[in-house]
C-alpha cells in the first residue's frame, strides 16, 4: 500500500530560504525552500557535491544554516540550544551508507544502544530490540558481531537501530550505496514498511533504479539549489548524464 502524503497538513520539516556556506568558502546550498508533510517519503537526488549531504547534515543538526531557517516539528534547529540537541536526535532515526555500527558490540548491543542512551530499563530494551530484529528479519543473529555479517545484514542492523526507539523521522544518507541491487531492493522494502507505519522518511540517494521504480516524491538538488520537486517523480536523466560527465 502506498500512502499519499497529505500536503494540506502542517509540514513537519520546513526549509525557509536556507543558505549554507562552509568555513572553507564552499557554497553548499543557496536559497533552499522545502516543505515535508508528516508521513512523506522523499528522495533527495542530484549529482555528487550538489548539496544532498549538506541537507542531511543540517537536518540532524551537525551543521547550522548560514542564512535562513529550518523548522522540524515546530522547532527551529538553528536556534536550538546545545543541551536540547540529544533530545531532538532521539526523535530521528539515522541510516548511513557506511552503517556506522559499533564493531565491538553485537547486533543486539548495537540496536539496544539507541535505547540505552535514553536510560530505558533492560526489560523494555529486550522487548523493543526483539521487535526491531523481527522487523528487519534478523532474528537469530543477536549475538553476531558486525564484522561477521554481510553488507545487507549490517544495513538491516543499522535500520533496526534507527527505528527501535520509534522515531517520527527517518533520515537516510545513501543507505543502499554499498549494497548490490537485490539487497538494496530488500532494504528499500524495509523503508517503505517503516514509512507505511507513519514515519516521515527523507532519503538522499544515487540509486536511479529504485527512485524510478518507487515513484515517490523526488527533490532534485543541483549546485546547491532545488532544481525540481516532483510529487511522483523519477531520477532525472539530466543528472545521470552530468554524473557520467563528472566521472
Amino acid at each position, binding site marked *: 500500500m502506498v500512502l499519499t502524503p497529505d500536503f494540506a497538513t502542517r509540514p513537519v520539516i520546513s526549509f525557509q530560504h536556507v543558505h549554507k556556506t562552509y568555513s572553507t568558502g564552499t557554497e553548499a546550498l543557496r536559497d533552499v525552500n522545502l516543505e515535508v508533510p508528516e508521513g512523506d517519503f522523499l528522495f533527495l537526488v542530484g549529482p555528487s557535491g550538489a548539496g544532498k549531504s549538506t541537507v542531511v547534515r543540517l537536518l540532524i543538526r551537525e551543521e547550522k544554516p548560514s542564512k535562513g531557517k529550518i523548522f522540524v516539528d515546530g522547532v527551529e534547529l538553528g536556534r536550538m540550544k*546545545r543541551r536540547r540537541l*540529544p*533530545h531532538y*536526535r532521539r526523535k530521528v532515526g*539515522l541510516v548511513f551508507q557506511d552503517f*556506522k555500527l559499533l564493531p*565491538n558490540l553485537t547486533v543486539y548491543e548495537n540496536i539496544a544502544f539507541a535505547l540505552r*542512551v535514553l536510560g530505558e*530499563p533492560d526489560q523494555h530494551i529486550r522487548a523493543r530490540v526483539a521487535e526491531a530484529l523481527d522487523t528487519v528479519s534478523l532474528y537469530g543473529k543477536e549475538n553476531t558481531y558486525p564484522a561477521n555479517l554481510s553488507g545487507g545484514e549490517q544495513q538491516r542492523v543499522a535500520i533496526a*537501530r534507527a527505528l527501535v526507539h520509534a522515531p517520527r523521522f527517518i533520515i537516510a544518507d545513501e543507505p543502499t550505496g554499498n549494497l548490490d541491487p537485490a539487497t538494496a531492493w530488500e532494504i528499500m522494502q524495509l523503508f517503505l514498511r517503516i514509512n507505511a507505519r507513519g514515519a516521515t522518511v527523507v532519503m538522499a540517494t544515487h540509486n536511479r533504479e529504485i527512485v524510478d521504480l518507487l515513484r515517490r516524491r523526488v527533490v532534485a538538488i543541483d549546485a546547491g539549489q532545488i532544481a525540481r520537486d516532483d510529487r511522483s517523480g523519477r531520477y532525472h536523466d539530466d543528472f545521470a548524464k552530468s554524473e557520467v560527465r563528472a566521472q
Partner: protein
Amino acid sequence: MILRNLKFALNSAWQSFWRNLAVSLAAVLSITLILILAGINLLVGHALSQVLDGFRAKVSEISVNVSDDTPLASVYDFKDQLAADPRVVSVRFVTKDEALTQFKSDPQNLILAQQIEGNPLDAKLDVQVRNLNDVAAVDSMARQWSGVDPTDPTNYQGDFVNRMLQLSQWLELAGVGLLVVLLIVSVVIVMNTIRTAVYHRRKEIEVMKLVGATEWFVRGPFVIEGVMTGLIAAAIALALLAVGYEPVVSRFKSDIGFIPLSYDPAFISSLARDLLLAGAMLGALGSYIGVRRYVRI
C-alpha cells in the same frame, strides 16, 4: 534512570579498559611513572623534613651558662622569668655537678674527662624555645642577664641556625616546585595518552551522539575509565614505593650515616591516600580534557 546510566557507564568503562588493553596499559604505565616520581618526591620530602625537625629541635634549645658567683636566688628568678616567656617551652636548671656528670657520661668526652681536675664547668639553664625564629631573641635576652658567664654566655650558634632556616625554606620550595612541574607534565601526558585512546573510539562517540546521547552520557564512561586507570596506576606505584622504601633508607643510612634518615612506616598510609587521590584525579582530569574535542555536539 541515573542509577541505570551509572551502571551503563561503569560497564562501558570496564569493558572498554579491557577491549583497548594496549592503550589502557600505556595510560597506566605513564601515570604509574609520574606517580612514582611524585611518590619519591613526597618520600624524600618527608625524610628531609624528619631530618630538619631533628636539627630544629637541637638548635632551638640553648644553654645559658651561669657564672660561678651568681647567687642561686638570682638564677631561679631568671629561670622563672624565662619560663613565663611565651616563646619558651621549658627551662631546666643544671647544676655544676650535674653538668659534669653529663659531660663525663658522653662517650665522646671519655679521654678528656679523665684529665679534668675539679669542676671547670658552669652551671647552666637549658632553654627549649618554641619557635626557631625566636632563638636569637631569647639568646640576646640571656646575654643581657647579669648572672651569665661573660666569657662563654651561651652555646647559641646564630649562623648555623640561620643557614638551617634558609636550607629548610629552600628545600620546601624545591619540593613544591618539583610537585607543580610533575603535575603539569603528568596532566599533559595523561591527556595525550587518553586522547589517543579516545581517537581510536571517535566513531563510537559519533554514533553515541547521533543516537541522542547527552554529552555526559558520552563523557561518563571515559571519565570513569580514567579514574580506574589512575587508581590502578596509583596502586602499582604505591606497591613499588612501599617495597623499595625500607631497603633504600637502610642503604642510605649505611652509606651516609651522618644524615639521620629514618624509615617511617606510618607515612605509607598518608602516601597511599595522596597517590590514590592524585591517580584518580589525574585520570579523571586527563579523560575529561582528552575527550572534550570529540564529545562536543
